[in-house]
């Protein structure tokens, strides 16, 4: 049988047709901001220095008479620069509170390199694309 030399040209692919990617692809890193305690561990572990976190401290008055006021950190900014990110997943691994997740979403290219820095709103939207991990392998 001869080779169909035109097959490649007739193929329709991305971006017209979104490619099927495996559910657990390392497409993008999504942020569940409610879980983030602004502890800075991910930003400090990131080998590419691509995570930027700003936070401030809020003090709540004591709940009862004679109690101590409690302070907690409030996240102001969480941004990942996907121009630098090398998709190693260390930030996801080290997060003690499961605030970061892999999502298979990948269609976020930009014309300007500066537009690849995505802030918490966009990172949060990608939470919708996060796929539940498969069940653990049965114990043999």
């Amino acid at each position: 049988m001869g080779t169909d030399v035109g097959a490649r040209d007739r193929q329709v692919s991305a971006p017209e047709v979104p490619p099927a990617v495996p559910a657990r692809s390392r497409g993008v890193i999504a942020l569940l901001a409610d879980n983030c305690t602004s502890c800075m561990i991910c930003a400090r572990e990131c080998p590419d220095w691509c995570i930027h976190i700003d936070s401030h401290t809020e003090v709540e008055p004591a709940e009862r008479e004679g109690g101590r006021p409690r302070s907690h950190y409030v996240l102001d900014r969480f941004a990942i620069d996907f121009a630098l990110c090398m998709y190693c997943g260390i930030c996801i691994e080290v997060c003690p509170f499961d605030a970061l997740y892999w999502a298979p979403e990948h269609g976020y290219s930009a014309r300007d390199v500066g537009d690849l820095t995505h802030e918490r709103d966009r990172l949060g939207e990608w939470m919708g694309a996060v796929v539940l991990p498969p069940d653990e392998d049965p114990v043999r």
Partner: protein
Amino acid sequence: MSATAAVADALARQAGGTASAAFGLDCVEVSAQRWLTALQAARDQHRLGYFDWLGGVDEAPEGFAVVIHLAELSSCRHLLLRTRVPRSAPVLSSAVGLFAGAAWHERETAEMYGVVFEGHPQPTPLLLGEDFDGHPLRKDFVLASRVAMPWPGTAEPGGGTARQGRRPPRPPGVPDAGEWGPTSAPGTGR
């Protein structure tokens, strides 16, 4: 014993080295003096005539390892040969006479790790500029752009920088501006 393991054992005997296996890949360790002997035996007697790649590993503080991956394509037999050169005198005989394809790999290993390949027909840098100073894949090579760039990890949880009296966190592998770079005291740099 697999076919490759038998080859590795035979090679180790011939070149006075040792054979081992890790991650499903057999490896023959030979001394730097027997490097070309081992390569020639692998190519001519064990038909490992396909040169895949050659590379370096900085095994600080002792020295550098040079690794070569050879294969026999018809049967897909393949193995590694490894030798070590001391940090004080990282010199090894060039394998270009046996495997012409090793020329670029040796030039890259030379510029990245500072290993000198004696007898190389064209010992010039492959990827770096002529005026590049240093060997970027050595573990003690300072990433200059990181010294100049602000580290996002400087910020503390809750805002601001480290509280007074506490040592501020430092990015791993990046020297303090006082220890290295144009603002450091003369004689304390690299």
